[in-house]
C-alpha cells in the first residue's frame, strides 16, 4: 500500500494483519464504500461503550431487588430501562454468583464478548492462553487474578460459542450495607464481570 492515498498510517513497521487492514480501509474509502467520517464515528461509538455500563447494571441490581429480578429475567429489557443500548446483542444472559457458585466466561472459538455492556475485550480475553486455560484450568486462572476458592465452591465456566452473550453478576462485597449505588459501582470491575475475580472489597485509591 503506497502512501499516496493520503491516509494516516503509523510510521513504525506494521504487522501483516495491520498492513492488510490499512489496505482494505484505503480501498473502501477510495471506492466510496465508506468515508473517513464513517470510520471515525464508528471508532467513537466503540470507545463510548465501557465497563461502566456493566458496573451500573450490577450496582443497581445490588441495591434494588426488583430491578435485579428484572435484570436476570430479561437483561436486554433491563438495559433499556436504564438507558443502556444493548440492542446489538442477539441475546444477553446474566450469571449470578453466590457464595457457593462462581461463574467465568470465555469464548474458546473466537472472542465473543458483550461489547455494548463491557466495551472492547481486554487483549488477554482474546489470547490463546486464556481461551485454553479458562476451560482446562479455571481455578488456576482465577488464582492468577487473586481469587482462591474453596474446593466445595462450584465453578461454572461458560464457553459462549453461539448467540448468547454473558455477564457475570459478582457477589456484593461484605461490609457495603448502606452504600450508594454510585460508590458500589466503583467496586464492579470489568474482570469481575468476566468472572475471573470477585468485585473489589473497597474503593481503589
Amino acid at each position: 500500500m503506497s502512501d499516496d492515498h493520503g491516509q494516516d498510517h503509523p510510521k513504525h513497521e506494521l504487522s501483516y494483519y495491520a498492513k492488510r487492514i490499512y489496505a482494505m480501509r484505503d480501498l473502501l474509502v477510495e471506492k466510496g464504500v465508506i468515508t473517513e467520517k464513517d470510520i471515525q464515528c464508528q471508532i467513537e461509538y466503540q470507545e463510548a461503550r465501557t465497563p461502566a455500563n456493566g458496573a451500573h447494571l450490577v450496582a443497581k441490581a445490588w441495591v434494588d431487588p426488583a430491578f435485579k429480578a428484572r435484570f436476570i429475567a430479561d437483561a436486554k429489557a433491563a438495559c433499556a430501562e436504564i438507558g443502556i443500548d444493548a440492542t446489538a446483542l442477539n441475546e444477553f444472559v446474566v450469571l449470578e454468583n453466590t457464595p457457593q457458585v462462581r461463574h467465568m466466561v470465555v469464548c474458546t472459538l473466537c472472542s465473543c464478548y458483550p461489547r455494548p455492556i463491557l466495551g472492547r475485550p481486554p487483549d488477554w480475553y482474546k489470547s490463546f492462553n486464556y481461551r485454553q486455560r479458562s476451560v482446562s484450568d479455571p481455578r488456576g486462572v482465577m488464582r492468577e487474578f487473586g481469587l482462591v476458592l474453596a474446593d466445595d465452591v462450584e465453578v461454572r465456566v461458560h464457553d459462549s460459542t453461539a448467540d448468547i452473550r454473558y455477564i457475570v453478576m459478582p457477589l456484593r462485597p461484605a461490609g457495603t450495607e448502606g452504600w450508594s449505588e454510585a460508590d458500589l459501582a466503583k467496586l464492579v470491575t470489568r474482570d469481575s464481570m468476566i468472572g475471573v475475580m470477585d468485585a473489589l472489597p473497597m474503593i481503589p485509591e
Partner: protein
Amino acid sequence: MGRTVTPAAGRFKTGDRVKVKFEDRPGHLRTPWYIRGKSGWIERVYGDFLNPELLAFGKDGLPKKTLYLVAFDYSEVFGKSQGPKDKVLVDIYDHWLDALA
C-alpha cells in the same frame, strides 16, 4: 433462571442426558473440539436461532436450530476433576446432540 427466548422446536428438555456428536467437516462449526464426543445434560433451552453454519456462508440460516446450554462435569471432559462440583457449560445447537438413555 431466565427465559426461553423463542419457541423451541428442538428434541430435548432441561435435564435430558445428551452426547455431543464426534464429527468434523469443513465449515463454520460452533461446537468446540474439546467437547465433541462428550456426555452431559441439558441445563437450559435457549430457543430457536438461525443456523450459524449456514449464515457464515451468506445463506439464510434456515431452518432455525434449537440452542441449548449443555453442562458437563470436568471429569467427563478432562479426565480429572477441578473442584468436585465444577462444570463447563457450552452453548450447543440441536443437530450436534444425540440422546443418551
